[in-house]
């Protein structure tokens, strides 16, 4: 019986393989090695790819089979950790969520590091300015008064108020698609505001005023030009521009609702 199962399994996978139309695609990668290159430059790689596979698989193939020096970040490979945000065909996405067939594979697919942060090597950027802005908005629970002896209870409705902004995986796709951030890198950026929003509108948190004051800064929410680049870039589908607008409104009315 066990033999039969194994047999069956082999057959399905074999027929499944035959059903897939593999194709040769060109991946055009922005490469930069600080030890030899004066400036970043484009390099083309040909790889065979399954159109329904992710561009991350092609990057793996290039690194493992063609050029081991290709450097990029990835960890979970399933859109959870947020470490592989890249600019693919001119748009910020997670390489592990971008399917080859959605990227017009008849033309070279361009892969660049996300913009506005210092490139360390190839597709790896220095995320420190991004995390600095994140830390600046105090992304942790601030609660005054006595410590409760049991968990802090919250109604479903109160939880729903900020549900959208809890989904952030800190991939930086939004902040590095923002033209205001590109300008001089001083703007807090959408990701920091999203994570401030997550606590400002949390009924268990008492630090709303403190965070609103931080975002009332010259480089805070008022620099937002409502471009919607961030909302478009977010791999988690967070309504970022709306979250920023809600923080603006809370600052004007001085009420958190």
């Amino acid at each position: 019986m066990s033999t039969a199962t194994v047999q069956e399994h082999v057959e399905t996978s074999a027929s499944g393989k035959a059903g897939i139309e593999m194709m040769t695609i060109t991946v055009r990668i922005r490469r930069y090695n600080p030890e030899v290159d004066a400036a970043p430059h484009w390099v083309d790689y040909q790889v065979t790819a399954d159109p329904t596979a992710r561009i991350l698989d092609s990057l793996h193939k290039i690194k493992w089979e063609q050029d081991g020096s290709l450097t990029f970040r990835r960890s979970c490979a399933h859109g959870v950790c947020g470490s592989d945000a890249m600019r693919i065909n001119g748009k910020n996405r997670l390489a592990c969520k971008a399917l080859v067939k959605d990227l017009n594979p008849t033309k070279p697919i361009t892969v660049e590091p996300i913009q506005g942060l210092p490139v360390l090597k190839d597709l790896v950027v220095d995320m420190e300015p991004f995390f600095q802005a994140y830390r600046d908005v105090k992304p942790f629970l601030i609660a005054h008064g006595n410590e409760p002896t049991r968990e802090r209870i919250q109604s479903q409705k109160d939880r729903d108020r900020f549900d959208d902004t809890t989904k952030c995986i800190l991939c930086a796709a939004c902040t590095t698609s923002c033209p205001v951030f590109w300008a001089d890198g001083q703007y807090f950026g959408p990701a920091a505001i999203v994570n401030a929003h997550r606590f400002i509108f949390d009924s268990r948190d008492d630090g709303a005023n403190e965070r609103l004051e931080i975002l009332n800064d010259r480089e805070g929410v008022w620099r937002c030009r409502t471009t919607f680049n961030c909302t478009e870039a977010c791999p988690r589908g967070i309504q970022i521009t709306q979250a920023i607008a809600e923080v603006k409104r809370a600052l004007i009315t001085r009420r958190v609702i």
Partner: protein
Amino acid sequence: MSTHVSLEPPRTGNPGRSQRYRSRKGPGKVTRGNFELYSWLFMRASGVLLVFLVLGHLFIMMVTDGGVEKIGFAFVAGRWASPWWQFWDLMQLWLAMIHGTNGMRTVINDYADKDRTRAILKGLLYTAAVLTVALGTLVIFTFDPSIKG
């Protein structure tokens, strides 16, 4: 083999731009004050007002009473005899100039990244704005219909 110790990592998407990290601000070191908040509110309010003022102005100038043909020294003199039109034009001048100047200020903040370039551009901008507003206001209030053009 030599290593480039002083090589500055290029900022992606901004070739040639000097790299600048977010200036570090400890808690409590944020810029206080509501200037940017009021500036943002002003842009929304003045924008809505200007839609009515400017469209109304264009309608009066271009459509009513025989269109542009009627505009001349006498027509302007006649309008400015009334405080209502003086007020209308004054509002248009001030709101449009402050709205436009503030918009240009944000553009300069977005596109000029050196402090010196910013200061120079803003200096020029504010000088031009103040001169235009002062001259316009002066003309609206001291207009003398008896000088014949």
